[in-house]
């Protein structure tokens, strides 16, 4: 038995008009879809801003945009990509997939779930409305260091309020995910039988619940400094500018794991399915995820070595330590593929892209964990290379792995395989062409966050290559868009389990009925569908 098509129940005619239904829905599947649309929209906006940045830097002494505009553009690029795309896109996948994977009918708190989602679009509008006000949008970088951030125009306040709203969204969302996974699991679905994607969402939720409010407190202080004459970050009033950095990174280092862990989860769903083997070392993987979550709170100061205000040996050592659980996961993934019968459909290609690019990103991060090395590399393009190898090569590739993998479940159609392959190769080559040269630029001392450079610097060729790469990445969105549009024009024809996968979301129809499942198999392991296919408990 490979897959069965259960006829869709007919009785679910919508009593309300479709638009009103989408606006008022509390169904985790619809909210998940709304999250995915919204975040992919901001991915596009952030991408356009990135192209502006790369156009400005394509040649030396360029004046395509003014310095002032440049600062707004790179700040809004990063803010959109991190706060409006990567962090909430996981909430989108999580919303759709987690209840299905644990055999639940919905999230624990459907209405709070709707609130979490509906905070995102207004926050995005608020943040971008900065472009309309006097002085323009925020321009202190996504890190908003003081004293710079204390002195800018009202666009900065809009940015602060937007990030606070997004923080509230992800904090209450995190509580919702936690209660859902603690309380809503189907009979037999013990914690240690939950799919790895759920585990990564769970640890992410813990990090969000504990770290995001700390960011909110820092943002509140910044707001008070700016609007009520506060002196939190003002040494003239007895405040401390480094305080911002300490609190910000106490949040933002855990936040980098908030941005990558669910991506690791997706990879860990895809690799076993397309290697036709169980995940190698399930338990080790779960503990490594928890380890990353715990260690994530002890390394923040590696972003601040050069301030001279932090205990360098300790934070350097802890930063090396956090490489260990990450290394464990690398072995999990490689062990999974080892001697598997691997097939290279689009989800697998993106997963392999993740593996190779994240490896490079992890290695170059560990470089800068060495304090003396970081003194040379800090605030250069080397750091920009690092963050993009982990966040684009890692998280974004995982987003596309997830989209190609779950598209049949969510929309009942499959994305065209050829177009998927085309997108992957364009993106993979474009990505490396864009970001690999940044390592060399960084080693050569090119600072980050500068609007232009002189033609005597010798940085022009590498920058031009990088810009070409960026446009190649943009081109890779064409096959993707065509594939999505083409899929939507076809009828829903996907069986329950088109990939021969192992987890419960593939048990029900594609797309699932409103109530998710008509029935559930007995769960005896972390691969209930595999057990069902092979007639009983095999673990």
């Amino acid at each position, binding site marked *: 038995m490979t897959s069965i098509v259960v006829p869709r129940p007919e009785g679910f005619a919508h009593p309300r008009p479709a638009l009103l239904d989408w606006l008022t829905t509390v169904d985790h599947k619809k909210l998940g879809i709304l999250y995915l649309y919204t975040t992919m929209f901001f991915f596009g906006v952030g991408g356009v801003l990135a192209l502006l940045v790369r156009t400005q830097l394509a040649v030396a002494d360029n004046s395509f945009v003014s310095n002032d505009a440049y600062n707004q553009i790179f700040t809004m690029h990063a803010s959109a990509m991190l706060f409006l795309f990567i962090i909430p896109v996981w909430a989108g996948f999580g919303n759709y997939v987690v209840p299905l994977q644990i055999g639940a009918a919905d999230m624990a708190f459907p209405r709070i779930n709707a609130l979490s989602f509906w905070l995102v679009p207004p926050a995005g509008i608020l943040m971008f409305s900065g472009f309309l006000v006097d002085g323009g949008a925020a321009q202190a970088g996504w890190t908003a260091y003081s004293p710079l951030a204390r002195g800018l125009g009202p666009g900065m306040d809009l940015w602060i309020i937007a990030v606070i709203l997004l923080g509230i969204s992800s904090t209450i969302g995190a509580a919702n995910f936690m209660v859902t996974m603690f309380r809503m699991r189907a009979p*037999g679905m013990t914690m240690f039988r939950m799919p790895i994607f759920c585990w990564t969402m769970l640890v992410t939720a813990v990090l969000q*619940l504990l770290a995001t409010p*700390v960011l909110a407190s820092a943002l509140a202080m910044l707001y008070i400094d700016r609007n009520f*004459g506060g002196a*939190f970050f003002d040494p003239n009033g*007895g*405040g401390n500018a480094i*305080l911002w950095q300490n609190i910000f990174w106490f949040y933002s280092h855990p936040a980098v794991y908030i941005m990558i862990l669910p991506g690791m989860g997706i990879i860990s769903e895809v690799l076993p399915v397309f290697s036709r083997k169980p995940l190698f070392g399930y338990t080790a993987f779960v503990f490594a995820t928890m380890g990353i979550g715990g260690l994530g709170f002890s390394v923040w100061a590696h972003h601040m070595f050069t301030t001279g205000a932090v205990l360098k040996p300790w934070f350097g050592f802890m930063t090396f330590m956090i490489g260990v659980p990450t290394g464990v996961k690398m072995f999990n993934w490689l062990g999974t593929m080892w001697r598997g019968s691997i097939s290279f459909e689009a989800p697998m290609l993106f997963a392999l892209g993740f593996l190779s690019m994240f490896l490079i990103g992890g290695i170059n991060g560990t470089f800068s964990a060495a304090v003396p090395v970081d003194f040379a590399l800090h605030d250069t393009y080397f750091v920009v290379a690092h963050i993009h190898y982990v966040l684009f090569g890692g998280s974004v590739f995982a987003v596309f792995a997830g989209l190609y993998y779950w598209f049949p479940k969510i929309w009942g159609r499959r994305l065209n395989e050829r177009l998927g392959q085309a997108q992957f190769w364009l993106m993979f080559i474009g990505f490396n062409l864009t970001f690999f040269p940044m390592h060399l630029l960084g080693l050569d001392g090119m600072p980050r966050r500068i609007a232009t450079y002189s033609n005597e610097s010798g940085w022009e060729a590498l920058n031009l290559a990088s810009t070409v790469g960026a446009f190649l990445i943009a081109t890779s969105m064409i096959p993707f868009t065509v594939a999505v549009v083409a899929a939507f024009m076809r009828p829903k024809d996907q069986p329950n389990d088109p990939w021969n996968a192992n987890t419960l979301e593939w048990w029900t129809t594609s797309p699932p009925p409103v*109530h998710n499942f008509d*029935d559930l198999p007995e769960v005896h392991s972390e691969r209930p569908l595999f057990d069902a296919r092979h007639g009983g408990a095999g673990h």
Partner: protein
Amino acid sequence: MATHGIATQHKQGLSNGMLGFILFIASEVMFFGGLFAAYFIARADATEWPPENMLTAEQIARGVKLEVEFALPFIATILLVLSSVTIQFGVWAIRRGDRTALIRWLMVTIVLGLVFLTAQMFDYSQLHFRAGDTVYGTTFYTLTGFHGAHVAGGVIFMGVILARSMAGQFSAARHEAVEACSFYWHFVDVVWIALFTVLYIVK
């Protein structure tokens, strides 16, 4: 092959709502944790506390004095601690099914909360420094202000619970919202005790 219906929720232990509420309070603790951290760092950095030496000529001319009154906040503290006791009496009452006593204790607690807020406002009006007057003023008003906002939120929360009790919505078996409300109120109380200790006692 045997199949199961869909599980709704596990019935033992805390309810989902209560668990979610406790997680929410955990996030609030982290929020205040960030504010407290800022306060401690500011104090650790200062050569003297209150940092009179950081005052500008303009501030001195304006008559800024970095000092707080003790007596009134102390009385307010006692009232707030007392209000934790009174709301707990309300919880115990409804656990026995005594709705009248719940309503009475809720009213007492709301009054105590309002008295606390009034005392805080009055205290603010008596102080000789503002939020902009050194990091001392900033941390003082930020910490007490966010706490005060939580007290106000708690009073509104209790108002809703009071209305629902009067509508007869709670019983010995069903009174989760009352328990959640008391949790929140105790949390607000504990934050205040910590605040009172560091702002008024530890010199």
